[in-house]
């Protein structure tokens, strides 16, 4: 099964432990990880996406792409707002991007209708990943051990989300483990 997952953790440190554990599962050949990133939501409700320092135009593209993916993980309503709201995402300086208020409203609205959808509460962090897995148990078990809660949407379902337009949902995830300096495990 090819799935997009969001694993919610109580803080950034735990999220990076989760990210490392996910790539370890890949190294052991239990799952195949195609791309990952870590997102945070601060106490004011603003989203931030960790990415490598790169060209400002590319950082903006990462913000737009990951924003759309977060919306899609929040469910169909979130996908619509995530893709449309992507244009409002600011450029990243060293990797941080803020996500517009529309997406925050979208995920709140979605939570009321679908308790299994991805909702990132203020102060929490999440690992976002594109994975292939024969069974969901390996990731679920390992992430639960680390205090993470896993949400999934299938790759096929996301490809069918008409709101994505030209965005390929996983294109903006890094295809290898990246832990920014200062986030020691």
């Amino acid at each position, binding site marked *: 099964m090819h799935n997009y997952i969001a694993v919610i953790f109580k803080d950034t440190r735990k999220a990076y432990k989760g990210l490392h554990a996910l790539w370890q599962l890949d190294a052991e050949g239990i799952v*195949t990880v195609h791309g990952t990133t870590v997102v945070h939501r601060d106490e004011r409700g603003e989203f931030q996406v960790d990415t490598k320092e790169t060209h400002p135009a590319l950082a903006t593209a990462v913000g737009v792409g990951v924003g759309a993916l977060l919306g899609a993980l929040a469910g169909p309503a979130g996908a619509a707002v995530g893709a449309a709201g992507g244009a409002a995402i600011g450029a990243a300086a060293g990797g941080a991007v803020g996500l517009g208020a529309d997406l925050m409203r979208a995920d709140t609205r979605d939570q009321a209708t679908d308790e299994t959808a991805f909702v990132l509460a203020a102060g929490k962090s999440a690992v976002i990943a594109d994975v292939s897995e024969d069974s969901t148990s390996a990731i679920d078990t390992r992430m639960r051990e680390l205090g993470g809660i896993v949400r999934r949407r299938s790759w096929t379902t996301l490809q069918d989300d008409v709101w994505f337009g030209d965005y390929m949902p996983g294109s903006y995830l890094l295809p290898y483990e990246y832990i920014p300096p200062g986030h020691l495990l």
Partner: protein
Amino acid sequence: MSTNTAKDLDHVRTAAQDLHRALSDAAAKRGEAVKADLQAVAQKAKAVTESVKATISVQNEATKKHLQEAVVDFEALQKHTAEALKNSGQAFEASIRQTLADARASAQSVSEAVAAMRSAQSTKSRK
């Protein structure tokens, strides 16, 4: 499928990931430093393309399909890297963006080939 075949594919995947890493690091630089890095990337891309071609014939159909897609992506990467080395200004920036998109697409295709190979091995071992 032999252990060596699986290892070869893992090495190709690592090389594809390294290419993306090198390109995104290069994109963060400015001026001639970017072009020096791009020359190194162009050579690596050519070597990885040959490695992918060499592993295609011994794979199952699903893995083969993803590797064929990877070859197309790697060849586009080589073409756009060559263009980037000749361009300047906005055309250069556009080439860099395209090159990075090619590198990401090729890493994805190789990674999906690895997933297909692992899935086939897992099915085989359950029988």
